């Protein structure tokens, strides 16, 4: 729990004239589970999407696994292979079966033999209770199953961190628990996780640290107890009183 996996320095991002991130400094250590909460439009998702450069920061540095990935001329694909990401709208590949969704990146980019990739994919599918769906196409899956598939697809690359961008926001209420349980299992297995979420109970239960973002900055951060039981900042109090 000591070595730094992700380090963000003075991160700034604008969309046109709108300054979405106004200078963020953060460090995520290996094995840490960090939740990012805050009102919509506060920059949570943009912050997360900057971490694997799906959004290009306008200013600042991002260090991942000892390398500055915001440097010019760096092959970001190689770094993204070690940073999984799970999206609000799943973004599973509809033209591929469940198994193909999972094995695509390991076979193409890590040059893992197909049978070995499939064996590993089956183990992962079993761990989320979807082994029987291996030959289905995503259109036959429920939202919860699609999201579990997306998580497993990210895990197949054996990433060092997984970024979750509101993973349960697009799910029907009865699907939420299953997906959160998968994330909980991951958290307790020691995976480093950064998660943007509106599930306060979940954030409180699994996080080592909670970041409260407001208006493009991290307004307050601390352990779940500190943030949820004894918030210091006015905006944190106001936000929590609205959502809890």
């Amino acid at each position, binding site marked *: 729990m000591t070595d730094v996996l992700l380090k963000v320095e003075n991160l700034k991002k604008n969309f046109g004239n709108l300054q979405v991130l106004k200078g963020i400094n953060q460090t995520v250590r290996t094995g840490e589970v960090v939740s990012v909460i805050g009102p919509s439009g506060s920059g949570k998702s943009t912050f997360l999407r900057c971490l694997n450069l799906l959004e290009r920061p306008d200013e600042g540095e991002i260090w991942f696994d000892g390398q500055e990935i915001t440097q010019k001329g760096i092959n970001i*694909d190689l770094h993204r292979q070690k940073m999984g990401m799970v999206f609000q709208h799943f*973004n599973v590949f509809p033209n591929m079966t469940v198994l193909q969704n999972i094995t695509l990146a390991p076979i193409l980019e890590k040059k893992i033999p197909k049978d070995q990739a499939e064996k590993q994919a089956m183990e992962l599918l079993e761990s989320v209770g979807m082994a029987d769906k291996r030959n289905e196409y995503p259109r036959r899956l429920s939202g919860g199953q699609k999201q579990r598939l997306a998580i497993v697809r990210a895990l197949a690359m054996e990433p060092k961190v997984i970024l979750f961008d509101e993973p349960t926001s697009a799910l029907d209420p009865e699907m939420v628990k299953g997906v959160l349980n998968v994330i909980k299992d991951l958290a307790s297995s020691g995976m480093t996780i950064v998660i943007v979420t509106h599930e306060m109970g979940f954030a409180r239960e699994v996080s080592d640290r909670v970041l409260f973002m407001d208006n493009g900055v991290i307004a307050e951060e601390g352990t779940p107890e500190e943030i949820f039981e004894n918030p210091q900042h006015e905006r944190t109090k106001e936000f929590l009183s609205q959502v809890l």
Partner: protein
Amino acid sequence: MFYDIIAIWQKYNYVFIEGVKWTVILTVITVFFGTILGVLIAFMKMSKVKILNAITALYIEIIRGAPMLLQLYFFWLWLPKAMPFEMSERDCIIVALIINSSAYIAEIIRAGIQAVDKGQTEAAKSLGIRDSYMMRYVILPQAVKNILPAIGNQFIFMLKNTSLASTFFIGELMTSWRTVQTATYKPIPALIIVGIIYVGMTWTLTILLGRFERRLAASD
């Protein structure tokens, strides 16, 4: 009139059939090579190289903006002079038709690719899949479902528009009408025959395309 139609068909059906043959050949060649050229142009228009974007944008605007008949005249007049080898009138018209449909097909392909959900690109990127693999395994297989029906429509469009080539008497179905009316002095019955054949062909194609589209949609 009805008896004229029957009589003309009985006497000249081989002329019409020859015309149908050339209409189909012209359309198939045009759409086939137009698609190959269209793919190239579409990727040039989407590339990160600014100069390629500008050139292809201009190409598409000119070809879609100028009348097709004008383009046929242009290539019919210009190609024989410009080329070091001999080109028949029919070859010139084929080149003109290919170039014309390449611009439309390029736009079909570009639109089909850009219609694929942005989340698919992001998911592929987040897995560290390089752009060329992403295109080949994730984006194109999904884009094809948008593109194929539109190319089918382009096929029907070209089937009708090859009739403009009759201006140069190159043997497709509309040329057959000109041949027959010259021989019979009965333009209207011959025109009705040609019209029935055109509508029959486009109607059949529309039905086939509709079935094909439903099958594509079912596999989604």
